[in-house]
């Protein structure tokens, strides 16, 4: 699997609103189980388990067996990586807009120079 494919999975894992809410809950409470999370969310325990499996697969959460249920924790390093990638989208637009600015100002300056020359 290429680095890009891994990143795509990471992105789509965190792109789902329910999964983001689950990550928020896990961060706030330190850890949680499929049962404890489903009590806080408008989805079934089975749905929560599926979401946890997606998050686990991309390394955003880790499970530790404790008692009868698996307890999940957020992997903060992996989360930080995902958040940095979200920020990259905005950065890409910043770079494009800077290029638009420079391009437009170059054109304007050239036009001004031409007009000045024509006026002489």
């Amino acid at each position, binding site marked *: 699997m290429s680095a890009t494919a891994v990143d*795509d999975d990471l992105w789509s894992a965190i*792109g789902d609103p329910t999964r983001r809410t689950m990550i928020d809950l896990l961060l706030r409470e330190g850890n949680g189980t499929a049962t404890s999370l489903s009590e806080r969310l408008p989805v079934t325990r089975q749905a929560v388990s599926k979401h946890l499996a997606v998050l686990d697969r991309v390394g955003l959460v880790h499970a530790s067996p404790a008692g009868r249920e698996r307890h999940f924790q957020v992997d903060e390093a992996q989360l930080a990586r995902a958040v940095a990638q979200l920020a*990259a989208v905005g950065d890409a637009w910043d770079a494009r807009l800077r*290029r*638009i600015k420079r391009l*437009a100002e170059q054109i304007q300056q050239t036009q001004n120079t031409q007009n000045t020359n024509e006026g002489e």
Partner: protein
Amino acid sequence: MTTQSREHGPIVRDIRIDASPEVVFEVVSRPEHVREWWPDDAGFESVAGALGELVWRNTETGETTTVLMSVVEVDAPRLFSFRWCFQEPDRGGDSLLVTFELIPDDGGTLLRMTETGWREMGWEIAVLEEHYQDHIDGWNHYIPQLGAYVARLVATP
């Protein structure tokens, strides 16, 4: 730390440009300019409803990636918008809507860019661009090329 809202809210960016709205409008809406600040190639008519494409080229392998787009609204020199990153073939399904609004500002232009839509796809494109990066960091590469087509633009009424 919250993970919500950032990627699903619109991206909004304002930038002040020392050029008239007419000039800025040309730069954001005409493919011959768009390919200077964004993809390696851009083909579309600057007409509402026009279908076009953006092309990225890997300079090492020659491999190209084409992303479909469609022009939504053209109102010179005030507003230009288009959709891209369609999820389904033939420009179907969700997409990202990019809107450029131009506001005259004391001889210059306040340009506002808003991108709304399916953020996940937007990020995939960000990754694509990173892989076809040359033009991002390579602005200086384009400066020498500016003269020729600026002259062409100025010659156009």
